């Protein structure tokens, strides 16, 4: 047990940590001061007269950055005390951080692209409650990270023992055996996930890239020719309708491919392992992610499908865990390519009951369309008016109507798919437009619940229901006021009936 002794005395990160810190900080600085770096390219005077000074400043900054990284590597030390993990860090202002073991929620190993190239891994330690809820040790050798993680888990176990023995006396430790796979995404499954992804996002990226490259191109064009690229383009585009069609086709196809590729890269080799206190989720090709879903910490489970996904019998599942800050889409733990059976298994493990239940349902009233109508009009004008003034009234009319109809349809679907269902144990919230999303919140995980009624809703007796949990809140628009009150009463009643803790 020489390793155990190891962590009792202060340890540094792997020496490669210097470079990890250096590159990470450097990239951050470059990103922040992007404009300054571009100065010699834009400004003629700087390029000719002050280039040397510019480079001198730049290289001294670079040197300083490296010294800083080296120093922060030297000063970054971690060790295990009796009841806490201690971290010394800081270059100018030295500080010592103590994380008591009982506060540690999650320990995960991750590897971003820089760490991958340098052959090190990062260790992320999640703690509950406090504002700065994460601690990252950025560069450890894989062996060291595993050892440290094992040791921390080991110590944590001895602390948690009184709790554990009470709860799981029947569950024998299955440590010697290989943990069971709940889900292992093969390539064909991954392909299905890629095909069925929402590729509007990809199209959005394409548009962004196209418009920015277009701006750049037209700038370049202006430098070399007196003629304006705008005029040139506008003269030539309408001439060839086939070119326009080709462009639309091109954007659609590349949007599709980009989305598919990014989804497949992200969730490459996804596996969900059954562990004692939850699930371990691993995925990623370029950026390897290693996340842990704690049964106890889980607050909301969301399931997302669309017609193509239904056809393949797969769905995306997002798990939200308790957090002191806002839980955005990125912080939710996503599991893709989940079939019906696997979903039930995940649900059952995390929430300890099955979902196969009948819910009392309150639906969003169709009058919600009146509210979203203004958004529809706004979107139509936003796209229609510029087209009208800069291109052509006929084109504007066509684009305007297409957007009006499309947004109208999305709004209609949003209303149709929005509802809240409840029973003694769960709240089920439906949402989505093109895709369909169902969120499940166990009643005892609700933190507080509100009903909101605007002066306009009062005449039609409608209201919005807001359900707050430790992993964010859910809002259901335009449901009948009396039903909202019933749901509040019920949820509140059932919440006190169970002896279950929310965390």
């Amino acid at each position, binding site marked *: 047990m020489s390793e155990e002794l190891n962590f009792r005395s202060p340890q540094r990160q792997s020496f490669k940590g210097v470079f990890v810190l250096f590159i990470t900080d450097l990239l951050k600085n470059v990103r922040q001061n992007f404009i300054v770096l571009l100065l010699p390219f834009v400004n003629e005077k700087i390029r000719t007269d002050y280039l040397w000074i510019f480079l001198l400043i730049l290289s001294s900054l670079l040197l300083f950055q490296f010294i800083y990284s080296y120093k922060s590597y030297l000063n970054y030390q971690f060790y295990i005390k009796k009841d806490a993990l201690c971290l010394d860090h800081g270059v100018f202002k030295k500080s010592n951080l103590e994380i008591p073991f009982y506060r540690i929620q999650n320990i995960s190993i991750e590897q971003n692209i820089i760490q991958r190239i340098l052959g090190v891994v990062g260790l992320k330690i999640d703690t509950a409650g406090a504002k700065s809820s994460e601690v990252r040790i950025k560069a450890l050798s894989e062996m060291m990270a595993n050892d440290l993680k094992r040791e921390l888990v080991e110590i944590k176990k001895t602390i948690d023992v009184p709790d554990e023995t009470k709860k799981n006396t029947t569950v024998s430790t299955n440590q010697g055996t290989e943990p069971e796979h709940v889900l292992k995404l093969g390539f064909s499954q991954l392909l299905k996930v890629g095909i069925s992804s929402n590729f509007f996002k990809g199209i959005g990226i394409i548009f962004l890239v196209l418009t920015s490259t277009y701006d750049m191109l037209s700038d370049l064009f202006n430098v070399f020719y007196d003629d304006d690229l705008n005029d040139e383009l506008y003269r030539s585009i309408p001439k060839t309708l086939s070119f326009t069609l080709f462009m639309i086709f091109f954007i659609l196809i590349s949007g599709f491919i980009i989305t598919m590729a990014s989804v497949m890269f992200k969730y490459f080799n996804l596996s969900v392992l059954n562990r004692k206190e939850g699930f371990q989720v691993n995925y990623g090709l370029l950026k390897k992610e290693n996340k842990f879903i704690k049964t106890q910490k889980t607050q909301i489970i969301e399931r997302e499908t669309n017609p193509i996904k239904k056809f393949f019998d797969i769905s995306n599942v997002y798990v939200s865990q308790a957090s002191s800050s806002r839980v955005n889409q990125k912080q939710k733990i996503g599991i893709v390519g989940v079939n019906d059976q696997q979903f039930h298994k995940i649900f059952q493990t995390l929430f300890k009951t099955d979902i196969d239940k009948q819910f009392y349902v309150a639906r969003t009233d169709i009058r919600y369309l009146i509210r979203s109508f203004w958004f529809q009009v706004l979107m139509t004008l936003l796209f229609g008016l510029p087209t009208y003034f800069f291109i052509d009234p006929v084109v504007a009319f066509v684009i305007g109507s297409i957007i009006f109809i499309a947004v109208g349809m999305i709004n209609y679907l949003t209303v149709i798919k929005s509802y809240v269902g409840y029973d003694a144990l769960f709240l089920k919230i439906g949402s989505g437009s093109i895709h369909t999303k169902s969120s499940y919140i166990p009643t005892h995980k609700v*933190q507080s619940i509100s009903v909101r009624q605007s002066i306009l809703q009062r005449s039609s007796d409608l209201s919005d229901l807001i359900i707050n949990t430790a992993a964010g809140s859910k809002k259901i628009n335009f449901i009948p006021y009396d039903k909202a009150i019933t749901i509040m009463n019920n949820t509140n009643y059932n919440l006190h009936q169970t002896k279950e803790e929310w965390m």
Partner: protein
Amino acid sequence: MSDFSNLSVKLENIPDFKSIELTPIHPKFRRILSIRYSIALILSALVLSTLIYYVSLPLWSYSLMIFVTLTIFVLIYLEFFEGFPNRKFGIRELDIIYQIGFLVKKETIVPFNRIQHIEVTQSLLLRKFNLYSLLIYTAGESSGDLKIAGLDHHTAQKIKSKVLQEIEDE
């Protein structure tokens, strides 16, 4: 499923939070609202008039600015003073209820055993009138938190000790 019949039996027994009588907050808080309102009104008038005096813009933009400002103040007036009787709270055995608002009326229930911590605070203006604000925090992001402004010392302390006692009993 058994839950179905289970629930329908329970329905009558489930206490309705609408049936309990809520207590209005301290009437003196209305004066605090009027002071805040007047300060905001004077400040906006000052800003607008300096703008009109020093910056030359077309006439319609001034009219628009004044119109927008006035509309906002009418709305705030309604929210503050028409909505004042709506500012009520209620304490039950297991939870606290709060309602507020006129243009958008909001009713919230926070169960005692979900409260993380509770704070009694007093801003400068509140101190002048010897009133307090009660801040109730639940887990997660701030959307689930509750702020009851305009309680007298006795009520604020009573609610606080009630909540603390409930938390300790857990």
